[in-house]
């Protein structure tokens, strides 16, 4: 996998959008399956320290999904609806149940690069810059990690 460039990310300064791009050694059809087959999805969505349990999964336009991540007995649930499910594009809503009022609109594009490679572009639109910052801060996971603690320390110290 050393030939694959790392994920690029862009936080739009004018609208509360996060864009990401990554190329994969797989066909668009395989990427589509990895995003719509709940068994495959559960294998990669959460870190290995988390157990991901898919509780609801109807990958059709209008269908809904819900999965629960467990770490050290703590459960975090995420849910949303598939708005559109096409071989080249998935549109869905995304909510972390710990913040039930926050809804992100996510669009994924699978672009065929030929030779069994695919570029996946993701766009997440949230309802305010504050929400986006919360996403950026949490990485959609709960728990303060070392880097964040360090950064907060810098803020408190007035170093930043």
């Amino acid at each position, binding site marked *: 996998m050393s030939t694959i460039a790392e994920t690029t990310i862009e936080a739009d*300064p004018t609208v509360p959008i996060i864009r*990401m791009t990554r190329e994969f050694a797989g066909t668009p059809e395989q990427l589509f399956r*990895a995003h719509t087959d709940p068994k495959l999805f559960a294998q990669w969505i959460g870190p*290995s320290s988390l157990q991901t349990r898919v509780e609801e999964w109807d990958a059709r336009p209008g269908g809904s999904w819900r999965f629960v991540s467990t770490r050290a007995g703590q459960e975090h649930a995420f849910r949303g609806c598939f708005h559109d499910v096409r071989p080249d594009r998935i549109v869905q809503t995304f909510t972390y149940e710990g913040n039930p009022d926050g809804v992100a609109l996510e669009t994924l594009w699978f672009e065929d690069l030929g030779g069994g490679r695919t570029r996946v572009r993701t766009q997440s639109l949230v309802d305010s810059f504050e929400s986006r*910052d919360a*996403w950026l801060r949490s990485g959609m996971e709960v728990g303060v990690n070392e880097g964040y603690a360090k950064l*907060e320390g810098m803020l408190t110290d007035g170093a*930043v």
Partner: protein
Amino acid sequence: MAVDELSRIFAALADPTRRDMVTRLAAGDATANQLAVPYQISLQAVYKHLKVLEDAGVVSRPPGPQPRPVRLEAEVFDLMDKWIERYRRRAEERHRRLDAVLVQLNETENGNDEQRGRTA
């Protein structure tokens, strides 16, 4: 605290005039009067924009004789970069797990092709 800080920065930069001011300040300090020149807005409006940028910690006006120059606080952008980079790294980790799933899919499918080849 930190979330508020970052939100203020993003909100301050959500305005095109303020973004333009920041771009110009990146080239060097400037007074409010100098900043106002290219815009069709009053000096008062320029001060309003500067106040938003100042409150967010994006710029500062160090005390001194008038007219005080406006200075870009570069550390603010380091902070934003850090948060975004952390988020990006997490996404990259997720994408590497997806890489592994694709390797599995490829192996299974190649295996099936061979089987099909044999039975054909």
